[in-house]
C-alpha cells in the first residue's frame, strides 16, 4: 500500500515530520517498506533570479551572472549554459549542496579568474529528466528564494507500507490516517460527504440472488457525463503511487479504492443489456473478458454480476471489458457493494486474479460506508465530468455489523505486561473509532466500528483437534469465545502506545539449575554428528528433496513422496536417504578438483507421509584415497572404513557392538560383494555399509573409490540410565595366545571370532583377529585367519595344562562352528 504525504494530509491534520510518521507507522504495525523522497535531495536548491548576465572577460562560452535568492546577498555565479540571461528565473545550488545526478558537492571556486559562489542547474543535474541543453528556465512569476522542489510539487514523499492480512481497513489512506491520529500524531479530519441531489430514477436496478455472497449493494447512475483525462491533482496522486491514469471515470474508482479502501466499479449504462444487474452464482459454460484482457471461465462457486447479455464482471475481483467506461461514455452506473470475504478469497485464488478490489474485499471493507462512499463518488464524478445523478437503487440491506467487545483493565498488565492506565486505553480505543458502551472500575465495553472486521469478528471459527475429549474441547472453546474479543482490544491498546514501551521481564526459571533440554533420544543426533566429524568427516546439510531419478538409485520413490509443485524438476522427490544427497555433493566436489572427500549428513530419510515413516538417518560417504604421508602409504578408502564409521556411531550411542553381527544383505546401491548390514539380533538392521556399486558410481560421476554407510538412528534403543556394575579387576596378569586357522574363504571371519569367544567364557575376555592370509601357499579357496585370544585368570595363575585345555576347547569350538582347521 502506497500513498504520498500530501494525500495522507488530506485526512490527517498533523505537524509531524516524515521521520516521526515513518517511525510511528512501523511501531503500530503498519511497517514502512520504503520512502521515496525526491524532495529531500532537492531541498538545498532554490529559485533564483538572474539580475544580470554578462560575458565572462576571459571565456567565450561563459557568463558571469549576479544572482538573487532573496536572502539579502547578491551572489556571483559563473555559468556556461547557453540560455543564461539577464532577468531569467532558474534554480541555484549553493556551496555545500550535493548535485543529485552525480553526487558532486558544490564549492566556491574560481573559473577563469572569476569567483563563482554556486551553480545554476539543468533538469538532468537535478535528476529530473534528460534535459541538459541549458539551465532550468522557470516562469517569470516563480517565487524567488523558495525551495524549488516545494514550488514544483516534487517534495511529496511517497510512503510504502506493508499491510498485514488482518487490517483491511489500513488498505486506505484514511485508515492509515486514523491509526496515526490514534497513535497521537494529529487529528483525523471529518469525512461527511453531502448528499447529491437526485434528478431522475435509476435506469438500472439490482437483483441479488445470493445474499450470503453479497449482503448489500448500492448503485446510482450519472448521466450527461463527459469523460476525458482527469485533472492534474488526481493524475499526480495516482502516478505517485504507481497507478496509471486512464480516464476520469476509471481514475475516480481507483481514487476511492486507495483513499477510502472502498473499491467501486462503473458500468457504461449504454452497454448494459436490459435494465437489471443480477448478482448471482456463475453458471456452467459462462465466461467474460476481464479488464486484464483475459477470458475468464466462471464456475458455480463464483459470484458474478450479469446483465441480460451474460456475465459482466467477477464480483469484487475484476470488471469486464464489455461494459466498462471509455471516452465515449455519457451515462455511468456506479456499483458500491459488500461481498463475503471468504468467497472473494476463494474465487480470486481459483482464477489467480490479483486486484486492488480483491485485496480489500477478502480482508473485509467498511460495512457501513457504502452510502457515504457512493455520495462522495457521485460528487467527484460530477465535479470532473459534469452531469446529473439518478436516485440511489439498492438491494439487500446493511448487515448487522454492530457488536461490542469487553476489556478487563487488569489484562493490560496481566497479559500485555504494560502499565497503560485504563484512561489511556479507553482514549486510544476512542481515537480508533471505538465508542464506550459502558465502563466501570474493572473494565470497559466498547462498540466496535464498522471498519474493524478484525476485532471481535469471530472470523474463521475454531479448528479443534478431533482427538480432544468432548468436555475438554467444549470448555476450551467457551474460554476462547469469552476472551478472544478482549485480546483483539488489548492488541489495539498496546500497539498504539508502542510495544517498545512494555518493560521486558526476564523469564522466571522453574529451577536455578535447569534440567537437560534434550532427551536421551535427541542427544543421539548431536552425538553422532560429533563422532563423525571427529573421524574427519565434514557435516553437511542438504535439501530433503532431490530429483526422482537420482533418488531411485538409492531406494523406493513412491509417488506419494513426489512433490506436486516442485520448484525445479531436479528437486521433486523426497529422498529415500541422505546418502543420495551427499553422493551428489561428493561428485560436485570431485568435479571441482577435490577427489578425496569425507562427507556426512544426519537428516531425514522418507519412507511415507506418516510421522513414523520419516526417519532420521546418519549417512556418510568417503571417496578417493587416504592422505599421502612418509610414515604410511596412501591407500584407497574401502568398505572397512565405512564399517568403522557406522560402528563408531553405534558405539557412541551405547549399542553393545560385540553383540552385533554382519550380513551381506546391503541394499542394491552397494557393491554386492563388498557391503553388508549391521544387525542387532536376527532382524533389526541398525546400519548399512560398503563400497558403492560400480554402476552407481558411473551414473553419479564418482570415478574413484567410494564407500558409504547409513545408521538408522530411530532404531537404536534408548540408552539405559543405570549404574554400571562393579568393574572386573582381577589380580592376575592376563595372557595372550595366538591361533591360526585354515578355513574356507567363504566363511565369515566373524564366525571364528564368535566361536572362540564362546569357547570358555569364564577365561576368555577378548578375541582379536590380527591376520588374514590368502595366497598360493594355501589350498585353492582357503584362507588363513589368525586370532589372538586373551585369557584372564581369576583365582590363581593358569597352569600349562589348563592353558592347553583352553586352547583345545577354542580349536574345537572354532572347528565345530566353521569347519576351520588349526594350522600346524
Amino acid at each position: 500500500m502506497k500513498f504520498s504525504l500530501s494525500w495522507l494530509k488530506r485526512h490527517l491534520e498533523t505537524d509531524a515530520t516524515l521521520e516521526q510518521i515513518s517511525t510511528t507507522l512501523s511501531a503500530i504495525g503498519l511497517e514502512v517498506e520504503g520512502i521515496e523522497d525526491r524532495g529531500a535531495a532537492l531541498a538545498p536548491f532554490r529559485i533564483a533570479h538572474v539580475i544580470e548576465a554578462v560575458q565572462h572577460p576571459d571565456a567565450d562560452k561563459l557568463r558571469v551572472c549576479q544572482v538573487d535568492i532573496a536572502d539579502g546577498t547578491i551572489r556571483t555565479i559563473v555559468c556556461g549554459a547557453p540560455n543564461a540571461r539577464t532577468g531569467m528565473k532558474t534554480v541555484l545550488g549553493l556551496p555545500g549542496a550535493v548535485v543529485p545526478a552525480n553526487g558532486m558537492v558544490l564549492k566556491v571556486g574560481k573559473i577563469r579568474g572569476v569567483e563563482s559562489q554556486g551553480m545554476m542547474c539543468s533538469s538532468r543535474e537535478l535528476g529530473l529528466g534528460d534535459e541538459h541543453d541549458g539551465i532550468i528556465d522557470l516562469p517569470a512569476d516563480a517565487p524567488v528564494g523558495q525551495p524549488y522542489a516545494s514550488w514544483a510539487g516534487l517534495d511529496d514523499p511517497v510512503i510504502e507500507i506493508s499491510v498485514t492480512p488482518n487490517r483491511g481497513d489500513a488498505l486506505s489512506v484514511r485508515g492509515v490516517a486514523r491509526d496515526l491520529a490514534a497513535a497521537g500524531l494529529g487529528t483525523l479530519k471529518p469525512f461527511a460527504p453531502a448528499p447529491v441531489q437526485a434528478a431522475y430514477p435509476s435506469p438500472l436496478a439490482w437483483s441479488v440472488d445470493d445474499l450470503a455472497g453479497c449482503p448489500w449493494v448500492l448503485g446510482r447512475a450519472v448521466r450527461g457525463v463527459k469523460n476525458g483525462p482527469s485533472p492534474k491533482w488526481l493524475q499526480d496522486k495516482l502516478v505517485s503511487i504507481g497507478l496509471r491514469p486512464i480516464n476520469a471515470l476509471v481514475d475516480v474508482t481507483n481514487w476511492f479504492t486507495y483513499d477510502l479502501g472502498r473499491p467501486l466499479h462503473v458500468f457504461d449504462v449504454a452497454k448494459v443489456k436490459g435494465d437489471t444487474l443480477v448478482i448471482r452464482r456463475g453458471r456452467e459454460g459462462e465466461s467474460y473478458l476481464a479488464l486484464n484482457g483475459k477470458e475468464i471461465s466462471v464456475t458455480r462457486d463464483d459470484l458474478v454480476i450479469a446483465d441480460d447479455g451474460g456475465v459482466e464482471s467477477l464480483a469484487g475481483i475484476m470488471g469486464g471489458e464489455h461494459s466498462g467506461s471509455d471516452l465515449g461514455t455519457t451515462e455511468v452506473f456506479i456499483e458500491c457493494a459488500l461481498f463475503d470475504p471468504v468467497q472473494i478469497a476463494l474465487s480470486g485464488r481459483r482464477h489467480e486474479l490479483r486486484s486492488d478490489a480483491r485485496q480489500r474485499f477478502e480482508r473485509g471493507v467498511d460495512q457501513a460506508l457504502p452510502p457515504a462512499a457512493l455520495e462522495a463518488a457521485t460528487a467527484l464524478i460530477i465535479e470532473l465530468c459534469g452531469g446529473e445523478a439518478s436516485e440511489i437503487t439498492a438491494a439487500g440491506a446493511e448487515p448487522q455489523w454492530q457488536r461490542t467487545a469487553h476489556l478487563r483493565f487488569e489484562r493490560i498488565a496481566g497479559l500485555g505486561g504494560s502499565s497503560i492506565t485504563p484512561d489511556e486505553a479507553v482514549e486510544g480505543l476512542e481515537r480508533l473509532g471505538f465508542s464506550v458502551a459502558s465502563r466501570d472500575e474493572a473494565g470497559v465495553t466498547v462498540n466496535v466500528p464498522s471498519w474493524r472486521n478484525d476485532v471481535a469478528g469471530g472470523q474463521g471459527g475454531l479448528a479443534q483437534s478431533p482427538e480432544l475429549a468432548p468436555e475438554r474441547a467444549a470448555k476450551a472453546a467457551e474460554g476462547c469465545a469469552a476472551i478472544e474479543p478482549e485480546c483483539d482490544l488489548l492488541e489495539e491498546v498496546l500497539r498504539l502506545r508502542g510495544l517498545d514501551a512494555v518493560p521486558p521481564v526476564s523469564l522466571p526459571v522453574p529451577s536455578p539449575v535447569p534440567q537437560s533440554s534434550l532427551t536421551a533420544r535427541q542427544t543421539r543426533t548431536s552425538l553422532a554428528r560429533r563422532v563423525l566429524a571427529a573421524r574427519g568427516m565434514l557435516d553437511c546439510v542438504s535439501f530433503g528433496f532431490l530429483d526422482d531419478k537420482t533418488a531411485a538409485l538409492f531406494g523406493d520413490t513412491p509417488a506419494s513422496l513426489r512433490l506436486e509443485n516442485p520448484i525445479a524438476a531436479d528437486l521433486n522427490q523426497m529422498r529415500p536417504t541422505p546418502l543420495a544427497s551427499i553422493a551428489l555433493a561428493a561428485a560436485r566436489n570431485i568435479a571441482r578438483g577435490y577427489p578425496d572427500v569425507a562427507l556426512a549428513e544426519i537428516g531425514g530419510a522418507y519412507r511415507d507421509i506418516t510421522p513414523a515413516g520419516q526417519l532420521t538417518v546418519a549417512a556418510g560417504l568417503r571417496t578417493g584415497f587416504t592422505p599421502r604421508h612418509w610414515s604410511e602409504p596412501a591407500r584407497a578408502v574401502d568398505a572397512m572404513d565405512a564399517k568403522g564409521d557406522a560402528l563408531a556411531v553405534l558405539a557412541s550411542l551405547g549399542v553393545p557392538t560385540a553383540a552385533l553381527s554382519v550380513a551381506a544383505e546391503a541394499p542394491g546401491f552397494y557393491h554386492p560383494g563388498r557391503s553388508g548390514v549391521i544387525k542387532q539380533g536376527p532382524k533389526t538392521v541398525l546400519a548399512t555399509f560398503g563400497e558403492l556399486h560400480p554402476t552407481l558410481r558411473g551414473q553419479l560421476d564418482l570415478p574413484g573409490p567410494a564407500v558409504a554407510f547409513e545408521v538408522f538412528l530411530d532404531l537404536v534403543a534408548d540408552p539405559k540410565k543405570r549404574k554400571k556394575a562393579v568393574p572386573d579387576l582381577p589380580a592376575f596378569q592376563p595372557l595372550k595366545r595366538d591361533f591360526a586357522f585354515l578355513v574356507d574363504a567363504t566363511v565369515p571371519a566373524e564366525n571364528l571370532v564368535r566361536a572362540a569367544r564362546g569357547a570358555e567364557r569364564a577365561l576368555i575376555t577378548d578375541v582379536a583377529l590380527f591376520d588374514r592370509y590368502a595366497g598360493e601357499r594355501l589350498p585353492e579357496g582357503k584362507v588363513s585367519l589368525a586370532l589372538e585370544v586373551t585369557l584372564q585368570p581369576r583365582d590363581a595363575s593358569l597352569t600349562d595344562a589348563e592353558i592347553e585345555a583352553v586352547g583345545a576347547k577354542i580349536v574345537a569350538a572354532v572347528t565345530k562352528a566353521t569347519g576351520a582347521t588349526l594350522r600346524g
Partner: protein
Amino acid sequence: MSDDLARLQADTEAALAAATDPRALDAVRVATLGKSGALTALLKALGGVPPEERKERGAAVNRLKATLEAAIEARRASLDAAALEARLAAERMDVSLPARPFPPAGPDAGAIHPIARTIEELTAIFGTMGFAVAEGPDIEGDWYNFSALNIPDHHPARQDHDTFYVPAGPDGRRPVLRTHTSPVQIRTMLAQEPPIRVIVPGRTYRADHDATHSPMFHQVEGLLIDKGITLGHLKGCLIDFLRAFFDIRDLPVRFRSSYFPFTEPSMEVDIGWNRKTGELGKGGDWLEILGSGMVHPKVLANCGIDPREFQGFAFGMGIERITMLKHGIPDLRPFYDSDVRWLKHYGTSPLSPASLAEGV
C-alpha cells in the same frame, strides 16, 4: 530377403554367439560393419545393381545393417553385464572382518556445519531458561501446519506461505512440507499438559528460490504456556537470548506491532546494526530478525487448552539468518551446497561443542 543377406545374418549371429569376450565381439563387428566388412561391401555394391532393383535391394541391405548393429550392441551389453558380474564376484571380500581401529583422518579434518552449531547454541541458551527441545515431522498434515494455527483454508496468509504439497493421503487432504516449525507447537500442546516450555529447531520448506531464499531452510520455534506469562516475559526472553547468542550485552532490540494468525498481540523484533558494514550492535539501522507474540486463544482452544486458564507466548526465527549475521556469512546458497572448502571454512571443531561454560 535375398539368400545372401539371410546367410550373412545367420553367419553374423552365430559369430556373435561364439564371441565371449570384447575382443572377439569387436572382431565380429569389424568383419561385418568395418571398412572392409561384409555388410559394408554389400552397401558399396549397390551402385552396380540395376536401377529397377536398386531401391528394393538398398532398403533390404539397410534393414539388415540396422538389425546387425542392434544384435552387436545387445551382445555387447550382455557381455558387459557378465563381465561386471564376474568382476563383482571376484572382488568379493569378507565384510565380517573387524573394521580398522582408526579412521582415515581425525578431528582436525572434520567439522560441524554452522547450522548444527547454531542449533546447539540455541539449545544451550534456551536450555538455561528451562526450554526443552521438541521435534516433529517435515511432511506434515495441513491441519497441523495451517488450520490448527488459525490459518483457515481461505486465509490470505496461506498464499503467502508458498507451500509445497505432496499427493493427498487417504483422508483426501494434501500433506504439506511444513512451511514453519509452528506445527510442532500443536503437536506439543496435544501431547503434554501445561506448563510447556519448548523450542523446536528444524527444517522448513517454502517454494521460493533466489539469492536470499532457499526452498529448504531452518527455523527455531519457541513456545511457552503457563499461568501469568505476559508480553513482558516474551520481550525479556527474546532480549536475553539475542544478547547471549550474539554475545553483545547491550545489543539494541526493538519491538514492532505486527500480525500473525497464531499470535495476538503479535510483534516483529529488530536488532540494531550497521547496514553498510554489517556490524551488529551499533550503527543506527534496524534489522528484522524474528516474529513473535502471545499465543492466540484460538490456537490454545484448538489444542484443548482453556485460554482463560493458561496463556503464553510463541516466537520463530530463521536459523540461517542469525547464523549469517553472527558469523558474517554473506551468501545463503553455500549452506546447502556441501562444498568442502566452505564447510572447512565455516565449520566448527567437533571437540568444542557449544556450551555456556565455554561460551557460545
